[in-house]
């Protein structure tokens, strides 16, 4: 039995997760259905959405906030940060604009998270 905290939403349910000999994963303590896939992923391939910024020219700020469009394997967080260092964008940018497609072959895109 493994204890973990669900991070899908701010509620932070305490999950008890049990991996049975046949490979089945049993999840208890989840307040909603989203807790089950989270616990399974966390046990097999933990993923996170990465949020950061990239350099922007001509905007009202010097940095444009961005995120990965979906969660990516958490071991790649620092590799994504390295990729973000390489790019520079020019204002105007619309929220949702794809800045890097399929980053590091994860299937996730880097998208702008505001208009600037």
């Amino acid at each position, binding site marked *: 039995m493994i204890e*973990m*905290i*669900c*991070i*899908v*939403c*701010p509620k*932070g349910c*305490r999950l008890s997760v049990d991996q049975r000999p046949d490979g089945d994963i049993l999840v208890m303590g989840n307040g909603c259905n989203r807790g089950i896939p989270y616990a399974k992923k966390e046990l097999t391939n933990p993923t*996170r*959405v*990465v*949020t*950061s*910024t990239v*350099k922007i020219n001509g905007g*009202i*700020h*010097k*940095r444009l*906030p961005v*995120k990965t469009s979906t969660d990516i394997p*958490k071991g790649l*967080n*620092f590799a994504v*940060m390295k990729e973000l260092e390489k790019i520079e964008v020019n204002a105007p940018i619309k*929220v949702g604009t794809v800045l890097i497609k399929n980053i590091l072959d994860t299937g996730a895109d880097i998208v702008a*998270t*505001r*208009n600037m």
Partner: protein
Amino acid sequence: MKYDLIVIGGGPAGLAAAYEAYKNGIEKILILERDKELGGILNQCIHNGFGVHSFNEELTGPEYATRYIEMLSSTNVEYKLDTMVLSISNGGEVKTVEAINTNEGYLTLDASAIILSMGCRERTRGAIQIPGERPSGIFTAGTAQRYINMEGYMVGKKVVILGSGDIGLIMARRMTLEGAEVKACVELMPYSNGLNRNIVQCLNDYNIPLLLSHTITQIIGKHRLEAVVVSEVDNDKNPIPGTEQTLECDTLLLSVGLIPENEITKNAGIDIDRRTSGPLVNEAMETNVKGIFACGNVVHVHDLVDFVSEEGGKAGRSAAKYIQHLIVEGQEVTEIKNGSRVNYTVPQQIRLENISEAQEFMFRVSNVFKDVNITVRNSEGDLIKKLRRPVVTPGEMEKIKLKKAELEQAKGSLTIALEEVV
């Protein structure tokens, strides 16, 4: 120029308030914002986790702000940026806002109603009196967040964070991703005030130690911060001699609490609740001055922006009702009191005539308690409502909703308390 409604502060509370007032039929609305854009602190909160309740999806702070800004752009709500409000007057039917900006100079603006949504600010080193030298490299966590996420300055390389509120936890991850080494997150209390999910995804993911029941007892550094001394504390929060450890660092981030920003409120003679440091409000989010409403972190510090928006919406609807003369001036006021192990309640007063179906009360508990009943009793001590909770903590705002029929049993006052399960 006379407006129906002036909203002070264009963060999440003010945006939601203006939008809801507009939707409820108010024509001339003006938002006054001191920053160069709308959105408030959401603009620097680039992490995700916002909007789970309001939009049923997980957004970053700037995305959440963008939603509201775009909703407002389809209305005729006006706003002035780079505009600092100096004072408000509470003079009866017509209220006056004095403000300045660089384009128009000194402004005197009249309105029928005002909504206060100025938010809060961070407690500083001065507020918690850490002894030691006064080098550079000591920031409040939110200031560092703005430098890194918006202005493009990295504030340091070796970091210690004091306080484990959400901003501190979020900054621990942010600094780590940007290449800094976060040595520890130091928390005075035996528990963290941050959300559990942030302890997992901000500290545990990056193996950052969380030192509970510890505090910083010395700051060392002539020009730039060189080290901090961390000590364990006893049950009375006094440092225990002999437990000192020195952590080398060039940066100290303080995440030690937020204080509602109410200088304008106080100067207008509006009553402040000593427990929340925000204005006293009634069921309509109206202060003790008729026609002046308040919402969001200026009233009490929230955990989630979703609830700030909800409260802003409520203030906006109430202001619309006030302007349309639809608020019933209740003869009888029911006081909401905080009983044992409850630190405050919002609202602090209700007028039953203005509640159509139910009223929700928000409150914070004084410590971590396991398996307790949240109870509501009337002025004679009769139990009106009871909710059992497996665990409550000061870090999470609690809510309890009472139906009108339950509220009618108050007989003058309602006391919200935590009681033992018997």
